[in-house]
């Protein structure tokens, strides 16, 4: 589904990614872990198409398409979704209106007719249950005055609405208490299927207790320095990142 080859990227003249190779197939969950500043969020942002990030070398192919040639909205329309680490507050735009616009532009891209109001509401109600989010929250201005947990739940709600093929969760666990973490993780698990893939970017093992990954990769200084299965995450939790850092220093 997703093939990343030798990806190098910089932001504001600072080189951050130094050659990343990664393959993600449908049905897989990949966790990307690593210490602060290792390039995890940069990788997520490059995949979503954030403008400030300049790809200096390498390729990204998503379902046979050259992702780097697509605008952020076209990536979303092709089925990429990024749950933001810091969801943006947008006064004056309700989540409902925002989702209706997004969904219909995606449908248009795929040659489907717009959803009528009733079908949209039915779909919305179904997805709301999934992430245990209240309609009153969705009628309000997008993320404005939402708690950290509400913002993250709203991200997963949007993911549920848009049904992406590849979802990238950028530190979705940051700022969540245990209950919110469980709700968010449950939502994600319900959306897992053999047809889609998920990349979970996180510092900590605790999210991976709930969203169990098939593969774990450790990012350090803009490179994947170690890959393994879910046991690698447990090892990192026990030993910390210094172990990886010193191994790198020796190598």
């Amino acid at each position, binding site marked *: 589904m997703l093939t990343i080859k030798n990806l190098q990227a910089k932001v504001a003249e600072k080189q951050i990614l130094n050659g990343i190779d990664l393959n993600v197939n449908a049905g897989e969950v990949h966790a990307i872990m690593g210490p602060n500043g290792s390039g995890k969020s940069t990788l997520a942002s490059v995949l979503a*198409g954030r*403008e400030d990030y300049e790809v200096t070398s390498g390729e990204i192919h998503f379902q046979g398409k050259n992702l780097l040639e697509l*605008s952020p*909205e076209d990536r979303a329309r092709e089925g990429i979704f990024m749950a933001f680490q810091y*969801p*943006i507050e947008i006064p004056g*735009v309700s989540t409902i209106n925002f989702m*209706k616009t997004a969904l219909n532009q*995606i449908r248009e891209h795929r040659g489907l007719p717009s959803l009528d109001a009733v079908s949209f509401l039915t779909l919305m109600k179904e997805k709301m249950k999934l992430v245990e989010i209240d309609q009153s929250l969705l009628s309000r201005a997008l993320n404005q005055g939402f708690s950290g947990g509400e913002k993250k739940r709203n991200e997963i709600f949007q993911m549920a609405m848009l049904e992406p093929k590849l979802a990238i969760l950028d530190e979705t666990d940051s700022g969540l208490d245990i209950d919110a973490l469980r709700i968010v993780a449950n939502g994600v698990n319900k959306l897992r299927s053999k047809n889609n893939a998920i990349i979970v970017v996180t510092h900590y093992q605790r999210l991976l207790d709930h969203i169990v990954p098939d593969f774990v990769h450790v990012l350090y200084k803009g490179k994947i320095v170690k890959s393994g299965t879910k046991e690698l995450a447990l090892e990192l939790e026990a030993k910390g990142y210094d172990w990886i850092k010193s191994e790198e220093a020796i190598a």
Partner: protein
Amino acid sequence: MSSTTVKKDLQIEIIESFQEANFGVAKELRVKAIANLERLGMPTGKQEEYRFTPIAKNLEKHFNWENSIAPSSITSIDEFLIPDLDANVLVFINGSFSKSHSKIVSPESQVKIKTLWDAFQSDKEIISAYFDKLVNSARDPFAAMNSIFWREGLFIHVPENTNVEKPILILHVNDARTSQVIAHTRLLVVVENNSAISIVEKFDSTGSQPVFHTYSEEFAIKENAQLAYYKIQNDQGSSYQVANTLIHQANRSVVNTFTLIFSGQLVRNNFGITIDGENCASHFYGLYALKGNTFADNHTVVDHKKPNSFSNELYKGIVDDNSKCVFNGKIFVRPYAQKTNAFQSNRNILISDAATVNTKPQLEIWADDVKCSHGCTTGQLDEEAVFYLQSRGISRTTAKAMLLYAFAAEVLEPIQNEKLRVYFDQLISERLHKDF
């Protein structure tokens, strides 16, 4: 002659066009205003109040001051009306009241609507108590000019304990298809104790010849009375307009104003609210969404003279192409006006590199037990927000339109008349290419 400086005697040329015989009423005030205009002269860039506003230069360049009334061949005013708004409609064409296009639907027991000329004969007492009391021709040259040259105007009087159910739409249409138009009109509104009225004033012109129009407008809002006042400046013609709009509030009165500026060559609003009573509330809202070469200048004053009142001023702007805007917001809190709550905010979004914003809050607070705040911001659209919307599959164009619409629509929240809110919403949606 150089076009960068205004000749010294433009005001003399203007004053010389005054022919006393044409003006039957308020002669003394006119004579006084002539002296004021002679003394004040036309404002240049050196005068603080008109520092950014090239009005005198434009008047010199585009107008001749012959004293004739421009002819009009307007037969229908339908295109200028507000759709579905069930209102009293009062129409001025080229500065003259047009009885045939006007219609009054509210009973006289609710509201008295007359031309000022008539009111000077029939309502002498109230006219002498209120007319020309708020407008200050000694301070502003355009107020002076209006006091010299006003030919026609309206007098609106709401008796005590009366709710005027239907709003009043005052429509100014200037027909500039064959020649320039110079017009000066006036409005006097008196809302007695415990009464309420909504007034909408809309300014339009047709044709491409230049239009210069001054408005002097006075509102006396008595105890526990309410005024909703809307100004719609979306003139598609080549118009230059200066309004002096002054509202006086007595105890427990409530005033909500909303000014919308979309088009015109140059709009200058001197808009002042004097809160001369306790427990008053004022919402002072505005939106300008400018493109082309439109110049919009809002000079506002909120003057708290008595304690325990509240004012909230919010002006928002979206400035595109070569357009320019000026916002100057003065708040005075007089020594006696303790426990005042006064807030002011001016927020601008610049769309093009060539657009200009000049914004200046001026707070002068003499009382020591008050809550006051002000803030001005000028910036671009938030790129993070645009990206967030894009990342959900929304095109960049739609994302920007959504954000601009959301930014603009905030000012509509306090508008209670549904038909008006829908109308404003449509204007904003069209201007911002809302397609979602």
